[in-house]
């Protein structure tokens, strides 16, 4: 069903296809539990990780996923700034294609760059994050983490908290979470939202206290100071007052509810130091699970896209 396809946006996948990816992730989770965490499924396939933007966990996760499926991996890192012109992006991609790779994993700082690249090449592409646009594998691994915890999506209340405006994770997650049946709301002040937030199609609250006691999932977004070209949010103290997950708020959380974060956490901003360190959090904080699930989800995607594919 996904053979030979690209994944550029979360809505490239139907609900049925999302289900298929998650089901396959379960199989690969089992592989990851084994003593020898490797299967020969993609032997002879080559995957290129092309990161125009710095990344540790996403790149490592894709690399590990590919290696555990026995694919060969080439990593290509370049700063977006040294490759300003489209020509050079295309040159770079062409060069890598000439090396006969079977799939590209690309991250780039500009929204829509994959749509641009996809027009030029036939090799499947997985979006590992483009600008403020999309980060579909993050949405899948987050959905998978939630599914593993609750067993279902329907009726779950999810609050996505923080810098929506500058977040590709939020764009993918709101879309995908809503579509699989979760009840999504956003918690953010006006300067971290599009000016007309009715375009989001989900309710918007302004402070974490308005939602903390009745949601099942608190999804903390990274406060993307590096993407905020103009400093529109007043200060960390202000953020702590209205948006940070601290111990007091943690106590108010509903029984069985959980906390997710795409990482890396800015300690003391999205989540307080004490919550990150303390035992008080118990098993609410699922950030380590997200990382593990990320590998399984990416294995599932690579497998589904590449395993049946004819040699180009």
């Amino acid at each position: 069903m996904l053979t030979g396809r690209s994944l550029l946006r979360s809505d490239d996948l139907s609900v049925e296809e999302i289900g298929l990816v998650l089901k396959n992730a379960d199989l690969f989770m089992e592989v990851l539990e084994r003593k020898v965490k490797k299967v020969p499924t993609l032997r002879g396939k080559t995957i290129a990780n092309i990161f125009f933007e710095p990344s540790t966990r996403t790149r490592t996760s894709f690399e590990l996923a590919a290696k555990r499926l026995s694919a060969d991996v080439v990593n290509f890192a370049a700063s977006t700034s040294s490759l300003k012109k489209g020509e050079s992006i295309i040159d770079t991609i062409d060069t890598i294609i000439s090396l006969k790779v079977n799939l590209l994993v690309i991250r780039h700082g500009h929204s829509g760059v994959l749509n641009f690249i996809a027009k030029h090449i036939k090799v499947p592409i997985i979006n590992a994050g483009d600008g403020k646009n999309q980060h579909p594998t993050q949405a899948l691994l987050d959905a998978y983490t939630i599914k593993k915890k609750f067993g279902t999506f329907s009726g779950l209340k999810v609050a996505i908290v923080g810098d929506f405006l500058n977040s590709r994770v939020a764009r993918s997650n709101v879309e995908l979470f809503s579509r699989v049946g979760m009840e999504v709301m956003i918690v953010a002040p006006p300067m971290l939202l599009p000016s007309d937030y009715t375009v989001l199609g989900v309710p918007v609250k302004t402070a974490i206290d308005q939602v903390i006691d009745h949601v099942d999932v608190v999804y903390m977004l990274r406060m993307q100071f590096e993407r905020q070209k103009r400093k529109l949010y007043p200060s960390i103290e202000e953020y702590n007052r209205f948006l940070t997950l601290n111990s007091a708020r943690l106590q108010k959380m509903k029984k069985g509810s959980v906390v997710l974060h795409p990482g890396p956490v800015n300690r003391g901003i999205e989540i307080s130091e004490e919550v990150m360190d303390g035992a008080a959090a118990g098993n609410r904080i699922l950030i380590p699970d997200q990382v593990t699930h990320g590998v399984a989800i990416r294995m599932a995607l690579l497998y589904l896209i590449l395993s049946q594919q004819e040699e180009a």
Partner: protein
Amino acid sequence: MKKRLGTNRIYIENATIIDPYSHNQFASSILIEDGFIKKMGKQIETQPHMTHIDAKDYVVSPGFVDMHAHLRDPGEEQKEDIESGIKAALAGGFVAIACMPNTKPPIDRPALVKYILEQARKNDFTIICIAAMTKNLEGREISEMGLLAECGAKGFSDDGKCVHDARIMYEIMRYAKQFSFLLILHEEDSSFSENGLVHEGYWSNKLGLEPIPALSEELVIARDIMLAQKTGARIHITHVSSKQSVEMIREAKKQGVAITCDTTPHHVFFNHSCLQTFDTNFKVKPPIRGAKDQAALIEGLKDGTIDALATDHAPHLFQEKNTTFASAQFGAIGLETAFQAAYTKLCLKEGMDLGQLLALMTAGPSHILGLDTMAIKEGKKANLALIDTKIEKRVEKKFFSKSINCPFIGQTLASEVVCTINNGKLPYMRECDRY
């Protein structure tokens, strides 16, 4: 093979003439000799050795006037130069174009005005030279508007940039008023548009593209209406893009402010849903806005609030557009598709009368720029566009312009410019009619 182009005697037979200058619509044949319309009427005695055009299926209009084009000359001749710009204009039915001063260097000194006008003369084409309002387009010091006008500048603009200093804008207006100069204003508050790429709305959010709110334009229009009220200056707001802008200008006109405005065929033809493909040919300034804005522009064109259609022809190199949305340059070429796009959208889809559309591309801009009338009558210079409204064509990546950054590529547009008569000569005729 008989060469048609450039003959000094042209006979256009059985034309349906629509003349917005005289508000007339009538059938006539036209005999052109030595640059002028020699004779008009039903039956004209013809002579051999003249170019004969059977126009029974065509509409004959006065040649089009574009009050906003970037010819990139001097300085960026790899994108366009005056000669290629004129060829593109003629292919679009234009016989006069106003060129904007944001060249490299900008047209802010008399010698450059002379250069532009000399090139126009050499090419036997009317270029209306718009000079910079401020030195080096920096928005800080007023340019030598008096001297520039004496060399032939016909209007002033910092197009591409906006004068942010309200006091400087006020003084520019007072000084322009002294001479009765026309000011063409690009309205953009950069505190709202900096880093921005597209209209702020559903699609900017959906696609994670940095937004440019309509407020960026509206704030400055509001300011300049007030300044024009105070100073009595004659202002023209170019490439108006938002609903509220149209409403403010409509209101200002009612109150007697000396204000006119234009919008572009691409702002009328598209709305921001075109961005879905991340096609960088849709990256323009001001951005292509929402459906309500688009509807307000069409309404403004119909009710006369918007006085002209202007192309904002802005050529860029292929490699400057063949890149990511964030890296691409702002701008689109438009001379060769302006009429077809406007006709397809405004006349066929929105029910605008063809005569009104032609007025927006002829008498409308011509009056604003203070050009002599180009009415179609005996004794006048022959400057005409012949239009075939019955044809439909897909826009291909093939232009007379040196650049190909056209947002209409791939669109099927109705109508076509059959030929353009410029100063009595026939420098452009579409391929299928050449023989």
